């Protein structure tokens, strides 16, 4: 079974803090994704990565950056957290083999910025 884990289920930070959200997948997937999910807006893609050290902007990259130094790990960074970044953050991964495109999600991190 595919397993995607996220470093924290709940996180509370203060405005202006630098925040790191970590995601690890154990299935040797090439592709990894970061989304945020807000009521009424659905899931929106922040950034994704096709390979180590590669990154592509999604639909809402402003205020975020990412890092992928190893294939299994994809980090989302909030350089200076703001209250409008309070949200549920979801990581996903997929591979280029077999049932391509199918993304498998982690349990999510609910981030509150005060």
């Amino acid at each position, binding site marked *: 079974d595919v397993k*995607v884990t996220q470093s924290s289920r709940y996180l509370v930070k203060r405005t202006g803090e630098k925040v790191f959200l970590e995601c690890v997948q154990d299935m040797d997937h090439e*592709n990894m*994704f970061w989304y945020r999910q807000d009521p*009424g*807006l*659905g*899931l929106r*893609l922040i950034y*994704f990565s*096709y390979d180590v050290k590669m990154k592509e902007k*999604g639909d809402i990259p402003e205020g975020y950056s990412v890092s992928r130094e190893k294939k299994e790990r994809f980090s989302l960074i909030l350089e200076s957290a703001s209250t409008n970044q309070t949200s*549920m953050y*979801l990581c*996903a991964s*997929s591979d280029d083999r077999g*049932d*391509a*495109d*199918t*993304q*498998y*999600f*982690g*349990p*999510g991190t*609910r981030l509150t910025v005060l």
Partner: protein
Amino acid sequence: EDQVTQSPEALRLQEGESSSLNCSYTVSGLRGLFWYRQDPGKGPEFLFTLYSAGEEKEKERLKATLTKKESFLHITAPKPEDSATYLCAETQGGSEKLVFGKGTKLTVNP
């Protein structure tokens, strides 16, 4: 612009009362159509991938179908544990990006 529209937004069923959820997708260039289940406070759980019109997939009480312009998730004799939000998403040719609908919140009463 890619757009995935799900209906209804919310659906209440009695246990055993079968129904269908609808997902309209961007017709041209569809690469894959996906269904996920999401429980409150958790990440989406993968259910089905459909690639071409006429394709059907089943899992327990759920059956997903794909036509040339929409997909249906049929729920046969639902149970309270089927209560969740069901999400539909598409990928378009040349892109790995999933475009999600806003979901249908299903409640099954005992």
